[in-house]
């Protein structure tokens, strides 16, 4: 099956030479081997109020993820692991979805659907890991439907080896007074293509995305996050902090799309990037599309090195450059890391960052 559509396509295109209209060709979703994707090493633990269903809930379908329709369809049809969940009532617990790429199970093509019933409250944590030397593939499609008043939190922690590829499509449908929150950490992989797309079609629906990324080596990071507002009083917050080191090439597209009818909608988006090497490539395309008068939209982006004054100040307090850098990266990532609802996982993420930073060079 061949995809013709660009992965992570920018909702409104611009100059081709800037190469932001879609993910680069070399980051295309790999073809399925003739022998298929094989078995997966996956597991899940359900919290109270959450149960598995055999069939894909209709409510979760109909909207596509940031990756695009064709990629969604491929993951859906080629998935070697599918799991559909139904959430009812308020649950304080966490549903864990774990997947690990190893020599026997290098490929996980997973399709997850979360159908949160009216008034439910639920937290899902996806943990994607791999053995260090595995050259694997993790391609996942997560479809979320939050019914009126539902409150869904999805935490995605991706800690793959530097040799694996990662595709992460999330589609979100938010009903009246519902809220979907995504906490996303993309910390590994040599090709990472991620796109979350939320449809805020009903009154007072809310979408939150708090994301961090860390790119180093020769990796390619490609993001395409979209919030589409068509309902009144809808609210989106999409905020990303990132670190780029070595020769990493990263593109982040962030789009707030206010459509007719989105009266009093509010959308905020930001990206804050730390550049650690003169060889990184940082591309950003933060779009605001608007066909409704009565909205408030705002976007902010900044990129640069660590402030030398801050480094100097920290040095004057006895921190060496490495420590200072670690401190500053921690500070930047803390607002997102702190939202991970499990101390063990927070420590896992911190440890992973620490390892990465040890390899990072500070160029004077």
């Amino acid at each position: 099956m061949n995809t013709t559509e660009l992965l992570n396509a920018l909702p409104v295109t611009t100059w081709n030479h800037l190469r932001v209209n879609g993910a680069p060709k070399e980051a295309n979703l790999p073809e399925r081997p003739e022998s298929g994707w094989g078995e997966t090493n996956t597991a899940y633990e359900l919290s109270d109020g959450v149960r598995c269903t055999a069939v894909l809930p209709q409510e979760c379908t109909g909207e596509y993820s940031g990756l695009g329709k064709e990629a969604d369809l491929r993951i859906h049809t080629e998935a070697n692991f599918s799991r559909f969940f139904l959430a009812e009532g308020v649950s304080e617990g966490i549903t864990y979805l774990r997947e690990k790429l190893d020599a026997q199970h290098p490929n996980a093509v997973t399709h997850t659907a979360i159908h949160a019933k009216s008034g439910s409250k639920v937290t899902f944590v996806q943990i994607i890991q791999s053995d260090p030397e595995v050259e694997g593939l993790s391609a996942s499609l997560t479809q979320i439907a939050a019914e009126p008043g539902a409150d869904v939190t999805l935490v995605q922690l991706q800690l793959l080896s530097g040799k694996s590829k990662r595709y992460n499509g999330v589609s979100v449908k938010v009903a009246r007074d519902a809220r979907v929150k995504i906490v996303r950490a993309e910390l590994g992989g040599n090709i990472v293509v991620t796109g979350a797309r939320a449809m805020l079609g009903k009154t007072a629906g809310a979408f939150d995305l708090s994301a961090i990324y860390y790119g180093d080596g020769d990796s390619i990071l490609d993001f395409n996050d979209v919030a589409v507002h068509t309902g009144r009083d809808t609210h989106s917050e999409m905020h990303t902090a990132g670190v780029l080191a070595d020769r990493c090439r990263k593109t982040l597209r962030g789009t707030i799309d206010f459509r007719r009818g989105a009266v009093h909608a509010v959308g905020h988006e930001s990206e804050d990037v730390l550049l650690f090497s003169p060889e990184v490539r940082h591309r950003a395309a933060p779009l605001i599309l608007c066909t409704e008068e009565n909205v408030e939209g705002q976007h902010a982006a900044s990129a640069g090195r660590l402030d030398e004054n801050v480094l100097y100040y920290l040095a004057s307090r006895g921190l060496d450059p490495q420590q200072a850098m670690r401190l500053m990266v921690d500070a930047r990532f803390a607002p997102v890391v702190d939202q991970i609802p499990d101390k063990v996982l927070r420590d896992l993420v911190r440890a992973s960052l620490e390892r990465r930073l040890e390899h990072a060079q500070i160029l004077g």
Partner: protein
Amino acid sequence: MADEVKKTQVEDIDRSFYDFRYEVNASFQTDAGLTPEIVKQISEEKNDPEWMREFRLKSLEIYNRTPLPNWGPSLEGLNMDGIVTYVRPNTEMQAKWADVPDDIKNTFERLGIPEAERASLAGVGAQYDSEVVYHNVKKEVLEQGVVYTDLESALKSDHAERIKEHFMHLVPPTDHKFAALHGAVWSGGSYVYVPKGVSVEIPLQSYFRLNAPGAGQFEHTLIIVEEGAYLHFIEGCSAPKYNVANLHAGCVEIYVGKNARVRYSTIENWSKNMYNLNTKRAVCEAGGTIEWVSGSFGSHTSCLYPMSVLKGEGARMEFTGITFAGNGQDLDTGAQVIHAAPNTSSHIVTKSIAKDGGVSNFRSAVAVTKDAKNSKSAVSCESLMLDERSRSDTIPVMDIACDRVDVGHEAKIGRISEEAVFYLMSRGLTEEDARALIVGGFAEPIAKELPLEYAVEMNNLIHLEMQGSIG
């Protein structure tokens, strides 16, 4: 008539394949297309030097093999098959004052522009008036060794070699389809040369020189400002220019020398049938500064994104722009900058206003190359939606290949606050005036960058646009 319709249909089908494999079809030309013969004829009439003739023919080849852009506003209303009609002004295209649409005539009246001048603004007649004005300007600046003339004459002067070295080097015909078209059929425009260290105190204005019939379509402006010199060049005017043909594919190239400074101001108010596909570009040597002040009010469709190439260390660019799109308009405007040397800086501030179903988009590209250490860039764009039928998209891109940079971007979109309208009304202003005042205030950061008379006229334009915008 029936034949023509049929022909168009056939060509339409053809063209949908063209975009994918144009190279194969490049040698096939329909009668309606632009042929080497036509271009040769233009060249002959202009008495071009040999290199220019070749340049035009080469551009034509590029034009014929380059597809239309696959992004940006729709160009469907542009009859690309009948491109020759844009290129060859014939007797039918000689506009008469009587043919000028009423809304434009009304605008002239409201702006209080006298009848004689109206005719000249409309792009017909009164050419001798323009020449007088032009010569006056010329006399003042001539004394400083400045050259300000039309490009055709300059090509036959002792500046010929300099022109050859600069003409479409900054905007090569390969840049995009309309740059290629421009290269093939350019006609009219200005040549400005400011010698080393000379500061031209009064702004040079090109607007009077665009009035010759048909000259405003593909005019080429070439500005060379040598080391340490200063120039303020003003293009266009706030009164709408009416043109029978509805394609404008001009080109502006500005060479800013070491430590020189150029300010280029435009208030564009083409009639609302115009496809304004203008290409503007500046290159700055070390310590040079380019400042763009740009107002877009007219045109049916605009694609206008002046580019600044900061080539020398410490070069700077500033871009201040406003775009106001009303009913039936699709104005896609913005700015591009390439930081290609250390310590360069760019600052882009824009305001977009959309009303009555108009589309006012902001598009930008900020690129920082590997070598541009310690460069700074700040982009700020703000959009104002005046009703829910309009559209305003903000499409900025940053492409950074250097870590020692400080790049910031902020965008905001919103509406006129009803509380502010009430506040002003409580002080006695009518709702219409209150809204116009708020929009005027929104545009003020741009207005204050303009020479006073232009600022006043821009304000008038905003008030004109705002009239009848309630209810």
